[in-house]
């Protein structure tokens, strides 16, 4: 087995992750997560820690779907980390509290998947938030709304791609928290008493069926996220149904 330092990952971080991966079996028992041992491929350069060439391959089966979720959580965690590092001008105490909580949740989601995936985890993604003005409230909250709504539709679409019930449950535990985030962010953008009821507005919940907007399949989600991700994400191995 060749071991390469994932792109963008410090050696210290990588060693830390290796150390933690030795406790992965115990972690998986605690978390209830189920990942096939076969996914921990040692000979396939496209699985396991990144390739160092600016591309990650999510892999196949449930592992691939979980890497897909891991990629989205990396993106969200990086975004909110930058938001909290330097709040936009005029951020209220309530807004700072909400955004800090969400930052914590997304970092936890990211680290959860990294630990669960162990050596099958993709490398750290390189992100690009140059289209977001972190000094501007509307820009930050608008991006947050985009990420949260996208995340909800992504998880809603990923559920049917999973084959192990334990993994479906984990995805379910996370997606409802993303939906809680989405509602709170939307509430900050549009006053809650507006006639639109924007926390679950007609633009994201079909008023006729009461269903969240149609689930998004991984290719559509990754296309939408592409603006913010430098690393090429190869999703060709993901299940399609």
């Amino acid at each position: 087995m060749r071991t390469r330092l994932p792109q963008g990952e410090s050696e210290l971080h990588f060693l830390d992750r290796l150390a933690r991966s030795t406790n992965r079996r115990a972690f998986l028992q605690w978390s209830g997560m189920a990942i096939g041992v076969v996914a921990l491929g040692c000979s396939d350069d496209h699985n396991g820690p990144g390739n160092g060439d600016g591309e990650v391959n999510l892999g196949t089966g449930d592992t691939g779907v979980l890497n897909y979720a891991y990629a989205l959580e990396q993106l969200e965690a990086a975004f909110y980390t930058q938001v909290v590092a330097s709040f936009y001008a005029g951020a209220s105490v309530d807004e700072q509290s909400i955004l800090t909580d969400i930052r914590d949740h997304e970092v936890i989601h990211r680290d959860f998947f990294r630990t669960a995936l162990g050596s099958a985890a993709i490398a750290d993604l390189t992100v690009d938030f140059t289209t977001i003005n972190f000094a501007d409230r509307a820009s930050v909250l608008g991006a947050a709304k985009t990420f949260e709504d996208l995340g909800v539709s992504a998880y809603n679409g990923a559920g049917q791609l999973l084959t192990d019930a334990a993994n479906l449950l984990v995805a379910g535990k996370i997606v409802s928290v993303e939906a809680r985030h989405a509602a709170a962010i939307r509430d900050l953008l549009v006053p809650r008493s507006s006639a639109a009821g924007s926390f679950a507005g007609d633009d994201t919940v079909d008023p006729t069926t009461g269903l969240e907007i149609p689930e998004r399949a991984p290719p559509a989600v990754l296309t939408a996220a592409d603006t913010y991700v430098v690393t090429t994400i190869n999703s060709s191995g993901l299940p399609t149904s």
Partner: protein
Amino acid sequence: MRDTIFGSLDPELMNRVESRRGAVSRTGKMAGALALASMPVAFGLMAKKAFAQGGLPQGIIDVLNFALTLEELENEFYVTGLASGGLIPGADQPIFQQIRKHETAHVALLRSVLGASAVDKPTFDFTAGGTLDPFNDYPTFQLLSQAFEDTGVRAYKGQAAALMADNTILTTALRIHSVEARHASEVRRLRGQKGWITGNMTDNAAIAAVYAGEEATNGLPTSNAVTEAFDEPLTKDQVLAIASPFIVV
């Protein structure tokens, strides 16, 4: 008394709810037929397209009827609340109108899928035997709303695995699940709570049963944020125990 409302187990009532399925053959078919007949044409076509398969497996029917019972409870709760003059302040009306709209749609959607297999709407008593006054007391109305929404999120989550055999139904259930979570976040924040659930904590002991098990850390080091980052499932029995004080028959 109040702090036992939600925690009280009523096995007899739960059995009655469970056995409602047995009554379907007598009365459900007629109700289902009426529900289908009264559905707007466009919506009926949509539902038909989404659920084109023939007879559903009993396991899936059971889950959907369980969901239908919860949606009926939520729907009647909001319909009654919105019709109670002076209960909901004008500024908050749009919030509950939006939620009511979704719950009404969920009921219609589930009935359209279940057709003749749908259970009847139960008779509800939101005073829980005269101990609560949600339609005259706004804080109680808000408290029950939060309890029902957070319970709904956990209930759908707990049943997802049972729907894996049918991708369309699983995905539809997930698309309801996230809407319930949006509602829960909003109502919690309206009450001055965080939109997410910290540990198994609640500001009112009366709804403690709704949060049992939410303190799970999923293998991660314990912290408030870790418990907030994951919503935990409830079993069908746990959900029925929470709902039973409000179901007369």
